[in-house]
């Protein structure tokens, strides 16, 4: 108990370095690498995977604003409207918080399911914003694309989340009640 209180009271040292560094690395991966792999619609949405990780495992203060900032970073490297992904990732963190109460995120099957649903909803929401701007690609096609992106992202989450836990542990970030102090 005392240990948990001590972990929570520590000032997070890596929060902004993780969010800003991660956001920029993902921007490079998305703009320079992923399009060369010729994955078609099965291109994983790494930003959504990262935002979901923050939503599921970050401390109370390390979820909302970091998800928002991550979304803004993504918006800056895209020609879409600024704030689109920021709003979507903020909502994703809310949904992740709700899902965490029902499903244990330390089980990989649960991570798979949550990532599948989370990335689907983020992309579906983004298409909704495109539709509002008059740039929709058709709902049936959008559904197929969202499902393809979600199907590609969920296995990535299963692979990456344990690695992320390991990295945070190595960095000496405290963990209490299943939440990392970031």
């Amino acid at each position: 108990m005392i240990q948990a209180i001590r972990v929570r009271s520590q000032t997070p040292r890596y929060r902004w370095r993780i969010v800003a560094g991660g956001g920029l690395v993902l921007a490079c991966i998305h703009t320079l690498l992923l399009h060369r792999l010729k994955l078609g619609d099965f291109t994983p949405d790494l930003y959504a995977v990262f935002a979901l990780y923050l939503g599921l495992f970050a401390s109370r203060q390390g979820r909302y604003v970091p998800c928002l900032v991550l979304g803004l970073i993504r918006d800056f490297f895209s020609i879409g409207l600024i704030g689109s992904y920021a709003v979507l990732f903020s909502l994703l963190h809310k949904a992740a918080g709700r899902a965490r109460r029902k499903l244990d995120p330390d089980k990989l099957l649960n991570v798979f399911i949550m990532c599948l649903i989370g990335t689907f909803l983020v992309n579906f929401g983004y298409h909704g914003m495109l539709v509002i701007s008059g740039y929709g690609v058709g709902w049936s096609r959008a559904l197929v694309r969202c499902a393809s992106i979600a199907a590609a992202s969920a296995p990535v989450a299963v692979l990456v989340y344990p690695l992320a836990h390991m990295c945070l542990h190595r960095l000496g970030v405290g963990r209490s009640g299943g939440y990392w102090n970031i």
Partner: protein
Amino acid sequence: MRRPQEKLSLAWLLRHPLVATCILLALTIVLPYLRVGERLKLLTFLPLAHASSDVSETPYEELSEDERVRVDLQRERERVSELTAENSRLLQSLKDANSLSGSDFAKSPMPPAVNAQVIFHGDSSSWRSSCWINRGREAGIEEGMPVVAGRTLIGRVFMVGDNEACVQLVSDPGFACSCLIVDPDNPNEVAADRVRGVLRGDGSAMPLFPRLELEDVAVGAEVKPGMHVITNDYSGQFPLGLTVGVVRETIPQAGFLEVRIEASLDLSTLEVVQVLQHKRPEIEEQALALLKKK
């Protein structure tokens, strides 16, 4: 117990980031003419673009011997790439002229062009398609100018910095362009009988990239696979006769035909492109041009 009423201030907005973002989003929508979002994005991209374009800021005379050799080499490389681009453009024009022989499109004059290298491919969103080029306002590039490779349409300039510009590719869902469908086997086709439509991208990714569609084609229009799709100067945004692709299939929908197009170029492999210095004419100029045609 009544909660103390909170004042709407910057501190309050910082504590409610979702509200702040919604306001930001609304501002970006409401103030499209100021293009706040685009300007902000341009600022973030400037350091990256400068790093990639290898433009030396130091005057040539102050450079050391090694640096001068490097700068000379860089200039020679740029010259070679420009000549290569021009060569490929001329070859492409020749190819297009042969494929559309007999029609007047291949002979239609092309506006002057600025060669540019592609710095970044891709977009951080899986739904959008864009790339960055290393030429900007200083080279005479303005927003909305068409971007081509040879005589093939690639996109249009979306935002411009001093030495860099963002190009919205034809496969982006926000891209729209008036097009004509031309039958290469029937060079004597009457202009009034040509099928018209609006080209729209769907942000598709490879290997289906770019998958394009022509919308608003009237039902009953005679469209066959293998027909050529070229730009129309109806809106004045793009010059007449830029190649877009070849008709792959037609799907009848309620009230119109959906025409799927095989694009002429793989946009992911582009290295050098040309920005056509073509300006959209004013509405009065367009009206006069239409009157002259009639």
